[in-house]
Structures are given as C-alpha cells and as structure tokens.
C-alpha cells in the first residue's frame, strides 16, 4: 500500500509538472520579395504579416529583400506596400501571400511577388454599405448604401466609363470556392469575378479636381424621413443605381427621389440573376473599373464566357472582368469574422482588408496620404489635424493614421490627396459616421 501511494504521488507530480505552463512554440519564417521574377533587393521595405486572429507582426527586409519573422503556429497573410518615385511618377510596389503557414516541420521560406502600381486619378473615397440601426425597430437598416468617387488629382477626371461591381462571394467570410490549395483561381489570370451585376453610367460624368460624386446603391431617397439615424440621398447632384427598372429584380424595388434627374441613373444587366439587387451589408469586395457601357453590357450578357466555379445555374454566374480595367478596389471584412475571412482580390489588384461592424452607421473611409497632402502649397493653414472620426473607442475600431481630419480640412478649403497603396488595410479605415450624415 505504501509503495502504491508513493507511486501514485509521483505520478500526480509528474503529470502536474507536465501540464505546467509552456512557453509558446515559435517558428522562424522568412519572406523574400520578388519583382519581375527576380529578388527585389531593397533594404528596409516594411513587410506585414497578419494572422487569421488579427494579430499583426512587422519586419523589414535586409539588403537582399528578405524579411524574417518569429511566429507562433498559425496561418498568416503577408503583405507589402512600398512607395517610391520613379521617373517623376509616384509608384507603389505591393504584393501579398495569403498562404503563409507557421507549422511544426512546415515550410519556412515564402515569397511575395510585387506588382508595380502607378496611382489612379479616380478612387473610391467612401463606401457606406453596412447601414445603421433603426431606432424605432432596433433593427438594422441597410437600404441607404452609397459610394463616393473622388478625383484624387489636380486635373478634371472623366468618370463616364467608370463601372461598379464586386467580387465573389458576397461576404468575406463566405465559402470561397475560388480557393484551391490556398490560392485564388484567378490569382495569376487576367480577370477577377464580377458578381451580381456591373453598373454603368448612361450619360457623361465629369469630376472636377479634388472633388467627388455620390452614387446611391439601393434607394436614392431621404432615408432620414423614416429612419432618423440614416442619411439623405435625395440630392440633385447624386447618382443612382436604378434597380427598380430591372426586370429580373422582382423581390424588392428601391426608389429615387424626384430631384435626381434621370440622366443620373446608372443601369445594368444582372449577371448572377437573383430576384433583387443586392450587395453584402457586412463585408463586400467592391471595385470600380473603366469600361465603355456597351462593353460592360456585352460582358454581362455573354453567358458563354461566364465563369461557373460557383455553380452552373444563374444565381451563381460570374462574369470575368479584365484586371487591366480595374481602377480601384476595397476588400471589406466583418470584424466579427476576420478569422474566417479570405481575400477575394488577387494581389495585383488589392491586398489586405478593412474591418467593419455593420448596422451601426459606420462607414469605410479612405485614409489621407499625409505626405502628399501636406506637400500641396495651397493647403497651407487649411489642414485640420487630431482626427477623431475613427472608431478606436469601439469594438473592431480603427482610425486614419495620418491624423488629418479630411472632411474638416475639405470644409476649410484644403485639397486632400488620399492614400493609394492598393492595400485596403492601409488605404481605408472604419469611420464612425458616414460623411453624408448630417
């Protein structure tokens, strides 16, 4: 009996010590940057590694263009945005690898192929899609979505051939059938998905320098008349995705205020033909492109050329939108589902994501390119700092790292140049109040 007790005590102690606190197991992961197939031998290029749980690690490259990380076991997305000037033109090198894994006896070396991006004139300044809470019902209200296009240059921009669409799946955390072995089907192809519909203008549209236009996505009415927390989209200068006249959209009809002229209506031919015009209200992968309306219509009608990865029936049709025509994109993930979300844009279009919580009136707003904006001589004394419009105080919050309050600065007469890195995590943040909310 005594021996048994001693044996038992020893076993308890041994197992107890075995269960005692362990230090985290870490793996050394190296990431080599490449451009045009060769090493991007540039020192001090910042490389960001983001875990699926949202933890971010940063390192810089050595002279060979390689960055190293010490990471816990996990799956990561690595990304690079590196701005430089070449021949007097502002150039951004960006790229990502969403298949980095730190595992026991796993791969330790990864590469990121960088893309060379010259900045665009027309950009997405704001995408308000998540809606607000209707105080009278305590339910979400998302019929008030809109997008603001902005001319990010000192020259007038022609937006007549700007088109709008989004990638699949609807939600960033939805099942993504385009992934095989951690890689998007169209990663190295010449197209990205155009899901739902491609919308185009029906009349010429010009955007003056450092100015914007507003496009209502669902209903172009004064939503505040029924939902006080919403926005007023009844303005003669606004545009509207005129979905009420689309025959396939039978389930829900939206309206536009009379003050909006018919010339400001956009139109479409549904691609994935559901019974209502819809877009994710939690996590869309939204983009704009440049394409003649006739070409957009043809692309939307050419069923034979559709991609059927999602399915072979109409609700799952996807048109192949040429990458060369993409002007700007924003990848949005629901802050509640970041761990399960996957990027939907190939790295040559967009890397990273911006997180948002919907139904609270929050909006996705572009960050200011502080250096470029401050460099404009006409901005002297007009820039407003100490930006507090982000949501750093709430769950899933973020803010504009430039610290410049863009809307207040514009109101003071400043010209804002927004960030264009083609990395949504660096170009956008979650803003507490939609800019059209008065």
């Amino acid at each position, binding site marked *: *009996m005594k021996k*048994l*007790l001693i044996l*038992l005590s020893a*076993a*308890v102690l041994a*197992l*107890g010590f075995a*269960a*005692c*606190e*362990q*230090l*985290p*197991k*870490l793996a050394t992961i190296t990431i080599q940057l490449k451009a045009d197939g060769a090493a991007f031998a540039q020192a001090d290029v910042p490389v960001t590694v983001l*875990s*699926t*749980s*949202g*933890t*971010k*690690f*940063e390192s810089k490259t050595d002279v060979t263009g390689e960055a190293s990380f*010490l990471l*816990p*076991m*996990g*799956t990561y997305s690595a990304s690079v945005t590196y701005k430089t000037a070449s021949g007097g033109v502002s150039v951004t090198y960006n790229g990502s690898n969403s298949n980095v*894994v*730190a*595992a*026991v006896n*796993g791969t330790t070396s990864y590469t990121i192929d960088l893309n060379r991006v010259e900045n665009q004139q027309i950009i997405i300044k704001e995408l308000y899609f998540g809606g607000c809470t209707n105080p009278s019902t*305590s*339910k*979400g209200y*998302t019929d008030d979505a809109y997008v603001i296009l902005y001319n990010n240059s000192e020259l007038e921009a022609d937006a007549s051939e700007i088109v709008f669409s989004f990638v699949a799946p609807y939600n960033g*955390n939805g*099942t993504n*059938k385009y*992934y*095989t*072995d*951690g890689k998007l089907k169209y990663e190295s192809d010449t197209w990205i998905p155009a899901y739902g519909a491609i919308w185009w203008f029906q009349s010429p549209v010009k955007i003056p320098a450092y100015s914007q236009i507003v496009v209502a996505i669902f209903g172009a009415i004064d939503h505040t008349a029924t939902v006080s927390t919403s926005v007023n989209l009844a303005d003669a200068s606004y545009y509207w995705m005129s979905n009420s006249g689309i025959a396939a959209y039978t389930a829900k009809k939206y309206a536009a205020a009379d003050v909006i002229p018919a010339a400001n209506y956009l139109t479409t031919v549904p691609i994935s033909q559901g019974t209502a015009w819809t877009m994710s209200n*939690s996590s869309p992968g939204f983009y704009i492109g440049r394409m003649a309306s006739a070409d957009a219509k043809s692309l939307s009608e050419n069923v034979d050329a559709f991609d059927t990865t999602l399915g072979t029936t109409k609700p799952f049709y996807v048109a192949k939108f040429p990458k060369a025509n993409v002007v700007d994109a924003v990848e949005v993930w*629901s*802050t*509640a*589902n*970041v*761990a*399960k979300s996957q990027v939907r844009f190939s790295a040559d279009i967009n890397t990273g994501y911006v*997180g948002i*919580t*919907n*139904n609270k009136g929050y909006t996705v707003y572009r960050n200011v390119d502080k250096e470029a904006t401050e460099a404009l001589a006409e901005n002297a004394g007009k820039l407003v700092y100490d930006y507090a419009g982000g949501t750093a105080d709430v*769950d*899933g919050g*973020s803010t504009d790292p430039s610290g410049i309050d863009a809307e207040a600065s514009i109101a003071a007469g400043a010209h804002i140049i927004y960030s264009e890195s083609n990395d949504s995590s660096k170009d956008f943040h979650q803003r507490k109040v939609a800019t059209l909310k008065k």
Partner: protein
Amino acid sequence: MRHRIAFLTSLILASAVVAEAGAQDVRDFHFVKDTTPVLQLSNPAALTAWSGKVSTVVLEGTKGNGAVVPLEGSANDFSVSASTESFFRLNGKLAFHGALFWTDYQGREMGGPVMMNPELYPVNFMESDPATVGTKKRENYGLEGALALNLGSRWALGCGIKYTAGDQTKVKDPRFLNVLMDMNFSCGVTFRASDALLLGVSLLYRDLLEQVRGGIYGTGDIQYFVQTDKGGFLGSVAELAGDLNYVPATEYRPMANHYYGLSFQALVRERFSNELSVRYRTGYYGKKASTSPVFFEYAGIEADYSGRLLLPAGAGLHRFALDLGFATLANDENVLRYVTPAGQSTIVEYLGKNRVLDRIDMSATLDYRWCSEASGPRPGLTLGAKAAYAGRMQTTSLFPIWRKHATHTVSLDLTGQKVWTDGTWSWVLDAGLSGLLGFGTDKLDGTYGSGETPGLKSFDNYLGRYYEYKTLPRAGASLGFTAARRFGAGFEAFLRVSDAFDLLLSAPQYLAGRSRNLACITLGCNF
C-alpha cells in the same frame, strides 16, 4: 413531460421498494450519511462494509433573489427539484445504493456564459451584448445506482453508475441550446485485511458531453456576437452565424470530456476513512470529422484526498472531514484551415497547435461537527465549523500577449442545530453564520514579443463580475425550521423552511447588487 412522468414513477417505485425493505427505527438520512464514513467512499464495493438501511425522498422549491451570483447565475431565479436516495443491504451478500433526481430551473435576465458548466471548461463562450439577456430554462435528470457483492469473508466487488442528462435553452435571441450528458462509471474491489482495516481500489470513468448551438429565431438582420474566452477572459469575438465560428448557428457542437481514474481507499475501524484519487482528464471542443473542425484539445490531471474521522465523546460524536483537491488543465488551440481539394468537399487541415491555457485549481476543506448523540434519529444538539479554500491560477497565452489570472477564496461557516422532540413530533431549528473573503490577480498582462493585436479582446465586464464574485468579502446568515413527524418506527415525514442571506461587505463595481437571498421549502420523508 414524458421524462417527468417516467421520473416520478421511478421515484415512487423506488420508495415503495425501499419502504418494503425498511423495518428498523428511522433516522435522519443526511445525519446518517454524514456520520458514516464508508458511505462517503466512491468505491461501490465498500457498501458491503455497512449494514444499515436508510432512504429519503425530497421535494424542494428554491427562490433566489439578488445579484451576488456567479456569471452563469441569475439574480431572479426559481427551481424545483425532486430526489430520492437509498443505502441498504439487500441480504448477507448484496448491498445497494440508488438515487434519482430531477431539477427544473428557471432564471430571468440571464446572459453571460453560453455553456451550462463554464467553470469546468478551459474555453468558454459568452454573449457579447448585455442587452440580449433573457430567461433561461434548464432541466436535469439523474439516475445513480451501485451494487456491491461480498465474495467470501474478505473480498467484495462493486459497480456503480451515475447518469445525468440535462438541457438548457434561452428564450430570447440569441437562443443558445445546450444538451448535457454526464455518465460516471466506477468499479472496484475491497479487501478486509483485518477486523479493523478495509482496503479498496476502484477504477473510474466519466464521460461528460455538453453540446451547444446558437439560434436566431427573430428578425435576421441583427448581428449577434459571441465572445470566446480562452482563459482569464481574454479571447476573440465572432459573429453567431453559419457553422465556421466557434459557436455554430446551424448545428450542435460538442465539448467532450473524458476522465480515467484510479482510487484507493482505506477504512480503519469503520470510523476513519481515507480515499486518494487521481484522474486523467482529456477533452476537446469541436466535432471530430474531416469537414468539421476541432478547435481546442485539452488534458489535465486531477488528484484529491478525502478523509473522514469519527471520534466518540460519550454519547456524542466528533466528526472531522478533510477534503483536498488539485487539478491541472492545459488547453491547446488547433491551427487549422479549410481547404477544398479539386472536385471534393471542403475539409479541415490541421497545421499544428498553440498552447493557450495552463490552469491549476486547488481546494481544501476542513469540516468539524460535534453531535450530542451519535445513535439516535438525529442529535439533540449539533455544532459545526467549516473552513474552506478554493483557488484557481491560470496563464493565458495568445501570442504575443499573455495574461495571468488568479483567484483565491477563503470561507468560514459556523452552524448550529437544536432538536426538540415530543412524542412522534420533532422540531428542528438550525442557524448558520458565514463569511467569505478572497484575493488574487484579476489580470496581469504582458507580452512575449512585439505585434499588434486588434483581434484579441479582454472581456473586462465579465472579468470584473467573476473576480468580484470570487473575492469580495461577504457575510451571511441562515435560519431554518423543520417539523418532522414519525409514523411508526420506520417512517418519518418532514417539512422544512429555510432562508439564507448573503451580503457583500464592500460595494461592487461590476456585480449588479450586493446581496443574495435564498428561500427554500422542502417536503420530504426518511424511511
């Protein structure tokens, strides 16, 4: 309803069987159980060392009010229960222990932890919005049985099973549904080394399975979020949607626990029992299937000692009870991803695991009681004192952040009971005073290295409530009155009313109140 009818039928049948078997003078069930060390042993074979017969049937209603409750409690709850328990020797070779119970619980304005037994698990899930609190309903059914057989004059063999089934639902969105199954199986032998010494060894197996799912039955345009507490109220937040997140909205997901144990017993002169047990615990959260993830896997060791000592003092009795407990638990989170091989369904690929929690639980209880009489139906005067300690220390590691969290609770209870007997009637007045204080570390955070962690959240409101409940000093008092009447020699019916009140001695910051009152009415019988 079907379960309730079956339960009550079983209860009545069991009572009838036991009443048939009983013929000696009836004694208070709990007094007998408390002062009979052999009945405290987990080895079913030890039942053969006792030759008495005692049974009880109890119907009870309890009403609780006040916010000094654990996270999974309610400040306004009500429960009713029915139970029966018996120990008796069938004949010279066979001894029996049986129990049945049923509990129906209903608590209002409940939110917080999603699981029914949050203290038990290394990872927990909690509602993120205080505005979604609602009524929770819980039902538990239990069945316990043990049979012991003498194998000659020295050896005895016994087997026992305890099975509990339960379910819980919340009647407001998000509506979490829980299903519980808890089965304990034990089998052991005893050896009568001498007239004064009984030795025993038994094997234990426990299978505890709680399954949970979320449900949204109201309007679907409201997002609900679930906080995942990976230890120390540090973790992440995910939407209650689909089946990919920790808590699914479309299917049940199991928290499975298995215990494998070995226990040694030594009983000296029927007055001094010792039991040393060790259990290996293993478990996981998730479904073990190629298309469904297992998110967490955990394991630990538990060891405890339980001792009972009776010292006669004239006609009276000193009873000492010592219980010591020690448990470790380590939880690993699996690193996984979903992959879709060409032409196949999406499957889960496991890439490794990260240790996210190391936990140590310790407990000690010393309970002393003096009874003026040891052999009667119940002692005329009983005085008792109990000192208890319970501690939990844990480290949560969510790289690059770590958190240390510890609670230590010390309590002291003083009790007294006076019995007046007049013919077939007995009146019992009992009273108690209690005090509790605690200390520890609510959170001590640090980092292993650099890195931004916007995805990690500290659930400070829940942490505050938990910590205050464990550590804020409190005092309490209780008073109970029992009227009992004997019918013949072998049957006694009783009615008891009692009330217990606890008051926090310092103002809470997170708990919604500083008092708790429990009123209870019990109708039962001993036979």
